[in-house]
């Protein structure tokens, strides 16, 4: 079982028990790894309780998992994933992050950790090759993630390579937007995984070890690695990321109309230059890489009020352009507040944008707002809103719950519903689907709600990434639905598997193709890997997550985009462009083997070897 240890840790926080669990090699073949295995574990763990399970109940499992390539030393394979039912959306939740948590977890001798139960008192877990030890965390409860990381690293695994994933005060409060933060700047950001960790009274996990499983074919691994490094050096996207970090996307996004402005209501914004890569140089003090990554897209910044990991593209847009805040210092400050508290900047930015729009229109009650006044372009108000969300004060209590809950707390009003820009409860990330209509379908059908990284559709659709076997020919026109259902299905299957199960970094994958992925799997696992075989594995994983969501009540009526994103602008780079997700959705369901209501058909499940709905 090359690439894996063939075992994961099972931690019962309620009973204080830790057990090693062996897992069969067939699971790796069927589900790839990462969130594929996570989905299988959650599905199996919850059994008949799945449809009505409270994500924050003690019996809900929380799974950390690696991929087969994690720790192999191949570029872009540093990521690990956290999975659970999402307290934000109520459906399948997962979030992955880079850094070194995954490789070090694997070096500790474990492929993953399954956590269930709730500790009687706050605790943290120390994971090494001998298993896991629970420690009291009463003195850590209430501390932010930067402090917690420093303290836990100091206490844990002295002398060993160590990594920490922890929650901040937002997770302790079980805020639905709570993230898990690894080594200060790497966020398991989306779908509220921090709240699940908080619900278990689990403050932190420290991992340490030095025993990575050997690759099946070291010679092939060297060959694949050398080829990948060459491609990464040559590709414009990885070059740009290396040179200027993810902020390099601000100008291009602004130019194409991809950058959302004023809660998705404006086609452009003159302030974009204040938050672009050139402006970023004024706060830049260094760059960082994930484990074994040659790109180094992470940035360290220093301002009067922030020092450490800098804001990335999604944060620059969510707390910048979306609110018309042209103040990089304020965004860096707000980013650090979010990192310390453990909050998802995308969802929080989306919710503040909604609140700003409603406050400007006088639609937020005074009792909810307190003394805070939100206005477009008001950097100080944005930072104060973020601070309140982090502290659980005032309007921040609502902001930390996301757009859907904020809307539900207000009178039933068309303007309020319209301002809540989410899919299935997950706020839309910072890429406007009016530019590339396939993104409308991607947002509508992602298993975790509006998501731009469930697969590589964003880069494949515009032709910046190339998967010549799956997506031959020239790129399809962006503002059109033609051919987009087939493109997305292929992207969800193959690149979804690559990003979320094999756990390739999304950005590194842009420079690679199907052959690289297949040979990487072969080199590490020793199993022959074909494009068709990996695609089928990816399809199985996508369908399993869809099956979980179906059990949670998701139907066609949930596979919708917010009406706001379907309205064409009168001017700007995408003037007149309006996605038509309905027609794409019909074709997508047909290709996917879903029925008219979006449920997996029995024959589809049988073909993929998945259990029938309701049968376990």
């Amino acid at each position: 079982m090359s690439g894996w240890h063939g075992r994961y840790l099972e931690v019962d926080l309620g009973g204080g028990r830790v057990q090693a669990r062996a897992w069969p090699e067939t699971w790796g073949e069927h589900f790839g790894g990462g969130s594929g295995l996570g989905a299988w574990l959650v599905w199996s763990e919850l059994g008949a309780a799945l449809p009505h399970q409270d994500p924050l109940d003690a019996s809900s499992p929380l799974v950390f998992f690696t991929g087969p390539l994690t720790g192999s030393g191949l570029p872009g394979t540093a990521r690990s994933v956290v999975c659970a039912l999402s307290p934000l959306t109520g459906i399948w939740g997962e979030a992955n992050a880079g850094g070194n948590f995954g490789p070090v977890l694997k070096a500790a001798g474990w492929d993953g950790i399954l956590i269930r139960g709730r500790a009687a008192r706050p605790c943290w877990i120390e994971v090494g090759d001998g298993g896991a030890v629970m420690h009291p965390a009463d003195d850590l409860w209430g501390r932010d993630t930067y402090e917690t990381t420093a303290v836990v690293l100091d206490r844990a695994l002295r002398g060993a390579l160590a990594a920490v994933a922890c929650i901040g005060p937002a997770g302790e409060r079980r805020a639905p937007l709570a993230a898990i933060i690894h080594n200060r700047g790497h966020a398991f950001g989306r779908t509220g995984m921090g709240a699940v960790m908080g619900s278990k009274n689990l403050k932190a996990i420290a991992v340490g070890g030095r025993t990575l499983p050997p690759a099946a074919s070291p010679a092939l691994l060297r060959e694949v690695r050398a080829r990948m490094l060459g491609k990464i050096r040559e590709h414009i996207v990885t070059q740009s990321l290396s040179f200027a970090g993810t902020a390099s996307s601000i100008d291009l996004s602004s130019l194409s109309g991809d950058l959302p402005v004023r809660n998705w209501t404006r086609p452009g914004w003159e302030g974009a230059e204040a938050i672009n890569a050139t402006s970023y140089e004024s706060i830049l003090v260094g760059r960082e890489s994930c484990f074994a990554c040659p790109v180094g897209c992470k940035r360290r910044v220093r301002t009067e009020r922030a020092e450490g990991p800098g804001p990335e593209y999604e944060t620059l847009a969510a707390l910048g352009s979306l609110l018309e805040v042209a103040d990089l210092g304020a965004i860096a400050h707000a980013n650090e507040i979010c990192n310390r508290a453990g909050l998802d900047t995308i969802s929080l930015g989306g919710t503040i944008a909604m609140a700003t729009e409603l406050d400007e229109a006088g639609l937020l009650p005074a009792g909810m707002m307190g003394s805070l006044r939100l206005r477009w372009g008001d950097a100080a108000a944005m930072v104060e809103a973020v601070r309140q969300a982090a502290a659980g004060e005032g309007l921040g209590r609502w902001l930390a719950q996301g757009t859907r809950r904020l809307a539900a707390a207000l009178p039933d009003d068309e303007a309020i519903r319209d301002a809540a820009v989410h899919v299935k409860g997950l706020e839309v990330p910072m890429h406007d689907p009016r530019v590339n209509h396939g993104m409308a379908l991607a947002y509508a059908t992602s298993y975790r709600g509006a998501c731009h990284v469930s697969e590589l559709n964003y880069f494949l659709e515009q032709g910046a990434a190339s998967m010549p076997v799956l997506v031959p020919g020239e790129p399809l026109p962006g503002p059109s639905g033609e051919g987009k259902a087939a493109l997305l299905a292929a992207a969800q299957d193959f690149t979804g598997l690559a990003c979320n199960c094999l756990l390739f970094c999304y950005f590194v994958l842009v420079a690679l193709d199907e052959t690289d992925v297949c040979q990487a799997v072969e080199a590490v696992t020793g199993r022959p890997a074909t494009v068709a075989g990996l695609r089928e594995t990816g399809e199985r994983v996508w369908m399993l997550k869809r099956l979980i969501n179906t059990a949670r009540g998701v139907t066609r009526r949930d596979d919708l985009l917010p009406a706001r994103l379907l309205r064409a602008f009168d001017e700007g780079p995408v003037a007149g462009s309006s996605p038509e997700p309905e027609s794409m959705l019909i074709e997508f369901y047909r290709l996917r083997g879903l029925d008219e209501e979006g449920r997996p058909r029995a024959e589809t499940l049988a073909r993929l070897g998945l259990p029938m709905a309701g049968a376990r």
Partner: protein
Amino acid sequence: MPYFKDADDVYDLLGGLFRQGREHADLAPKVAASKILIQFQYREPEAVITINARNPQEPPFDVILGPTDIKPDVVMSMKADVAHEFWLGKVNLLTALARRQIVAQGPVSVAIKLVPVLGPAFSLYRQLLEQKGRPA
């Protein structure tokens, strides 16, 4: 059928775009501030245009039509038709670079720093074509 008749046609239109850019209130100071020294090498028909904002003889920047001894920091090579489509705003820069319709030699930082000037340049090019009675 190629859009440009010959090299002179390229210099008239694409060169004209850059020359008009020298007078543009938004574009000119941004290019000047970039201190850029960039050369565009076109094929079908062959033509060369160099922008020198590093040490211009005529600020804010020089537009040199034809071969020159000045050594650029970055060279962007493409078919002249791709350039025409690009300045009309019809070519995604990222896609063109990834698919090597446009080949950049030199530090990618230069290309990134140029992106903010593209928006106003797109409008300028359309105006120029209109002035000259040329179709878009």
